[in-house]
């Protein structure tokens, strides 16, 4: 299983000619794919992580986020899906770098995550997921962040 994953990942990395695979830990995207974490824009970060394959809009991934966030330092995000997803990542355009979190979903588990992120301004938040059959799915939402946290 590990082996298969590793090959899959290295193929993806080679495809975008990103950082060479230096670690055998196939799933630590921090080490295997450094470019992602340096990308400033969502589009280029997605390209680094998932290659330049076509993204398909989906409504099969449930993406919960407040429309208006009163506190930019702690925005609750909920992700869930019944699909068989391998990797799911969150990108935003509000911060100096786009990549926020990348989950590697272990085989047999379903996506059901709740967590919080920081955003320093109003921006689009994009979710990109890769299913085990190799499809790339995406969904996005704009989150309003009231500067100063005054809820206005």
């Amino acid at each position, binding site marked *: 299983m590990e082996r298969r994953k590793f090959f899959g990942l290295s193929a993806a990395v080679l495809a975008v000619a990103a950082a060479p695979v230096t670690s055998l830990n196939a*799933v*630590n*995207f*921090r080490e295997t794919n450094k470019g992602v*974490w340096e990308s400033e824009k969502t589009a280029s970060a997605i390209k680094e992580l998932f290659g330049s394959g076509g993204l398909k809009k989906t409504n099969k991934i449930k993406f919960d986020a407040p429309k208006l966030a009163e506190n930019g*330092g*702690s*925005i609750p995000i909920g992700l869930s899906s019944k699909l068989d997803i391998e990797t799911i990542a969150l990108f*935003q355009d509000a*911060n*100096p*770098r786009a*990549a*926020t*979190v*990348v*989950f*590697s*979903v*272990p085989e*047999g*588990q*379903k996506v*059901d*995550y*709740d*967590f*919080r*992120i*920081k*955003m320093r301004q109003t921006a689009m938040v994009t979710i990109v997921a890769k299913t085990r059959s190799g499809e790339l799915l995406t969904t996005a939402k704009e989150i309003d962040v009231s500067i100063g946290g005054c809820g206005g």
Partner: protein
Amino acid sequence: MASSMKIKAKEKKGVVKVKVMFKSLMADKEEAKKKSIDVDYIAHIIAKANDKVVFEASTSGFMSENPLLKFNFTGAKKGDNLVFVTTDNNGKTDTGKTKIK
């Protein structure tokens, strides 16, 4: 830096609900500069139940301070051990353990 995490795990009908809070400033480059503190964030989180990986995430400094995570997984029962290992930006690891209730 992260020296403690609070983990709660509860099994019900085969599904284990996990809530975990890590202690970390989650300060990325810019934020660290502004507050004149050191860059400090969790870069990688992995959770194992019975030596099987049940959760894995690579994170950046744009997660909130003291990140709180909730997730569900299947394949473990009451009394099993759940182990979390986090790696911060300097490569330092931290381990937290709990028994599933």
